[in-house]
């Protein structure tokens, strides 16, 4: 088994989930409560990775972060490095690629919070931000947890986008799924089988955990 690749994937998936949690929460809040007419455009953009072939997404990310692009140039000026074929570039690509898996469960959970509870909090003089923290987040806990777990699991298994943006550099951008691909190409079916089984186990555990969590949370707050 390629432990280096497994370790890299775990780091990538955790970092992606943490960053997405920070970005996804305000985005999901905005998508849930905004009354802007062009909201559907943002919704479509966020959901795009669900239907777009990973190679297409990867191709555009590669163009967008190339050293001569505005993003790539800025990154180069600040860090001296470049985004394509680096771990940082992989993180950026993964964040975009897994966005819907974080935002959609969260937005669904936010909109399931009884509107009157939010209004009650406002009328009690509690600010919008504090209401979000004290009412919406605790009541949407299951949805937030689902978002974190799904985006983690989705990043663990991504292939096309990684290959396009990160290439295949051991210890830097070679993730588990790419390692499996390499192993099969080299006709090393034993190693590929082991690594695949590992990914399968992780996926199953994570999903089982998600559903178990959902059930437990529902027991704590029985629907009235």
């Amino acid at each position, binding site marked *: 088994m390629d432990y280096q690749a497994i370790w890299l994937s775990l780091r990538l998936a955790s970092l992606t989930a943490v960053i997405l949690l920070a970005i996804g929460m305000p985005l999901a809040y905005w998508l849930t409560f905004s009354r802007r007419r062009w909201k559907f455009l943002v919704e479509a953009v966020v959901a795009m990775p669900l239907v777009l072939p990973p190679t297409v997404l990867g191709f555009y990310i590669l163009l967008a972060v190339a050293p001569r692009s505005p993003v790539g140039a800025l990154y180069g000026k600040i860090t001296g490095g470049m985004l394509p074929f680096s771990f940082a570039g992989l993180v950026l690509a993964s964040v975009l690629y897994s966005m819907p898996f974080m935002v959609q469960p969260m937005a669904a959970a936010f909109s399931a919070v*009884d509107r009157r*509870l939010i*209004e*009650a909090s406002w*009328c*009690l003089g*509690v600010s919008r931000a504090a209401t979000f923290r*004290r009412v919406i987040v605790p*009541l949407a806990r299951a949805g937030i947890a689902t978002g974190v777990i799904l985006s983690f699991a989705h990043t663990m298994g991504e292939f096309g986008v990684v290959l396009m943006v990160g290439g295949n550099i051991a210890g830097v951008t070679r993730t588990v799924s790419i390692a499996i691909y390499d192993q099969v190409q080299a006709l090393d079916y034993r190693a590929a089988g082991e690594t695949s089984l590992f990914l399968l186990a992780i996926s199953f555990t994570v999903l089982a955990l998600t559903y178990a969590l959902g059930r437990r949370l529902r027991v704590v707050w029985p629907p009235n």
Partner: protein
Amino acid sequence: MAAELTCECRKRRPSGFALDAKLVVRFDAAPVLVLFGPSGSGKTTLLRMIAGLEAPDEGAIALAGATWFDAARDINLPPQRRRAGFVFQDYALFPHLTVAQNVSYAAGRRDVRDLLRGFGLDEFATRMPPTLSGGQQQKVALARALAAGPALLLLDEPLSALDAASRARTRGELRRMLVAGGVPSIVVTHDRAEAIALGDSMAVMLDGRIRQTGCVREVFGKPVDAQVAECVGVENVLPARIVSRERGLITMETGGVQLQCIDSGETGPVFACIRAEDVALARGAGRTSSVRNHVTGCVAAITQEGPLARVELDCGFRLVALITAQSAAEMNLQVGETASAVVKTTSVHLTPGAPLQS
């Protein structure tokens, strides 16, 4: 506390519903205003506008000189800065917090223990809201709103989430809690008994407009027009004092006349409510029927209302009877003549009432 609420709101909905409400309330002597009207008349919308949860298209809202909303000056304070405590129809308690945490949610540094004790909630302090009865949830909602130190309390149909039995029991209790809370309150209801039991003054809302404002007895006793009369439904609302009770009957005294009704367990000052169509009339001062309530008086006015005649009788208090125009003609009733009114015991309904100011 010279709190005065002035409110002038206009709003059109795409559905065609138009709200155009003008309301001025002085809360100093009469702390509880009932906003009364049939469902769909715009009561809740008006309440939400006062709270800042919805914005009128035009108009202005101010409490005690502080402007909350003014379309002309582009002022629209968020609900947080209005401090209007809102008690929702189903109470909207935070389901993930205990009773004590709900009450202290917006209390800041204030100690809520006295408040919990005052509402009889200390034994439930660690319970979760869904495990409480409707009446207890209502107390938590009210305590939570009061703990935030509101300038005005807004209650949207506060008794409608309760079953019929506890509703009657809770009415008087809610009135006491509102008065003890010492915060001017607006209570939305479509129930006559609730309006009488809870309010000092009332405003009648019909089709998005405030049609009449005044003290509760005055509005019920002298509706400004037929529509309001039909809406408030009860023409006779008489302040009464309970004299005695025996064998399931209450004898009470109003305006020097004794009336009997079924004992529904009310105590203290009460109002006897009699619908005008439940009052039958006879010429002279007769007294021969199974009906226990006979009142003799002088006919003060007769008005025709289509097939009906509305007869006002002065018998120490004003009693309105609604009889068919035909019977009025057959009896040949004239203003100034003596007539006697008969009211069946079961047609007299008692509701607890606020002590009269005047």
